[in-house]
């Protein structure tokens, strides 16, 4: 019996469907979740979330968030989430070099800016790596909502 998976990011529903196993980047390492798992609440790290159903795998780049597990449903509240097939490599590349350039030129004026930039850089790296490693050129499962949201 498959388990239901719902992945939402702040601006849209990213994935909604069934899975035989879900592998998530938990705070303390990767976790594989099978149906009928005990209820669990955990935070997520930057990383790749894998949803497998009957040998097919869909991968998502997640930049942190919260996961709630109930025996029949997994809810992922992601800070941002993207199907690897949807990642815009050119834009991630551009974002990365923009931040790097800025960091080289002058140190950021305050901690908040620095953290925001670091976060942006981490996110770009994650997306690039995810696209490189996991992209297979398949069509992502369509869910309602609009095109992937804007980045900072």
């Amino acid at each position, binding site marked *: 019996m498959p388990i239901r998976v*719902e992945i*939402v*990011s*702040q*601006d*849209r*529903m990213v994935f909604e469907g069934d899975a035989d196993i879900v592998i998530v980047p*938990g*705070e*303390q390492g990767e976790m594989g979740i099978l149906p009928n798992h*005990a*209820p*669990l*609440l*955990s*935070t997520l790290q930057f990383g790749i979330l894998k949803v497998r159903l009957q040998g097919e795998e869909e991968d998502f780049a997640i930049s942190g968030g*919260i996961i*709630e597990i*109930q*025996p*029949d*449903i997994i*809810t992922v*509240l992601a800070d941002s989430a993207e199907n690897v097939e949807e990642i815009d490599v050119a834009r991630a590349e551009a974002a990365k070099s923009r931040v790097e350039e800025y960091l080289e030129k002058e140190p950021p004026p305050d901690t908040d800016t620095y953290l*925001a930039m670091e976060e942006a850089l981490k996110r770009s790296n994650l997306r690039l790596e995810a696209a490189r490693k996991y992209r297979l050129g398949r069509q992502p499962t369509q869910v309602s*909502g*609009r095109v992937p*949201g*804007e980045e*900072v």
Partner: protein
Amino acid sequence: MPNTREVRLRIKSVQNIAQVTQALQAVSASKVRKSMQAMYDTRPYASKAWQVLTHIAAQPGRDTLHPLLTKRADIKNVLVVMISGDRGLAGAYNTNIVRFTLQHFNDYQVPVSYITVGRKGREMLFRRRKKILAEFSNLPAAPTFVDVSAIGRLAVDEFLEGHADEVFLVYSDFINLVRQEPAIKKLLPLEVEAGAQRVEDYTRVERKLAASYIYEPGQTQILDKIVPRFSSLQVYQAIMESLASEHAARMVAMKNATDSATALGDALQLEYNQVRQQSITSEMLDIAGGAEALARS
């Protein structure tokens, strides 16, 4: 009696106004569609977050779960986050929000300070000499969560540091295109029970809760992450609703303005015709009088 030239000028200017308001109406119409979409897009996350939060609250021992969930016995200071627009020409949108806020908090026994979002609201509160703690204006047309998270964070900080014992959120509830109503919500301490009602609107399937959670890494870490974030999320949602409301209010206001301008234009056209008719008649009379005088001589 005005002469024809004057009336013609007025018709022209009224027509110009109608053109401008019609353009503004069209712009607002497209903006309201976009912001409605954005508002609906944020709902899945908000509803899921509520769900998780209510699940947590259903766990035993919730009173001591998190400082942001704990009610304070003694309310000494109140903080109000008021969301208004940056721009005018939106009918009664901004005034409604401010009036509603003041009605609600004017006769409060304890000191009330404000955080305003939007320039118009700030100006109006400023004129009334209210204590404004911070202001956020010139928000982007389609704010992301990151753009507005500072507002929620500020409110949470004020609450945690004890400068405020209750935080309220005043915003405009988007009911439909022609109806937007000012609304008030308690932001902090978070009231999970009050929200439980709303969750049922959102979630399609109501499920029975299993036994208590395993927390990983720990309960405190997770709550520390989810609870403050959820407050910010509420602020974000309120801003999205208010934005949609603002555009809708502006659209309606501009439609009314266009209609009135058209009506005024019609009335002026009638007047113009009359004036023109009259001047022709009087000229004819002059000519006829002149001719008669000539014939008589």
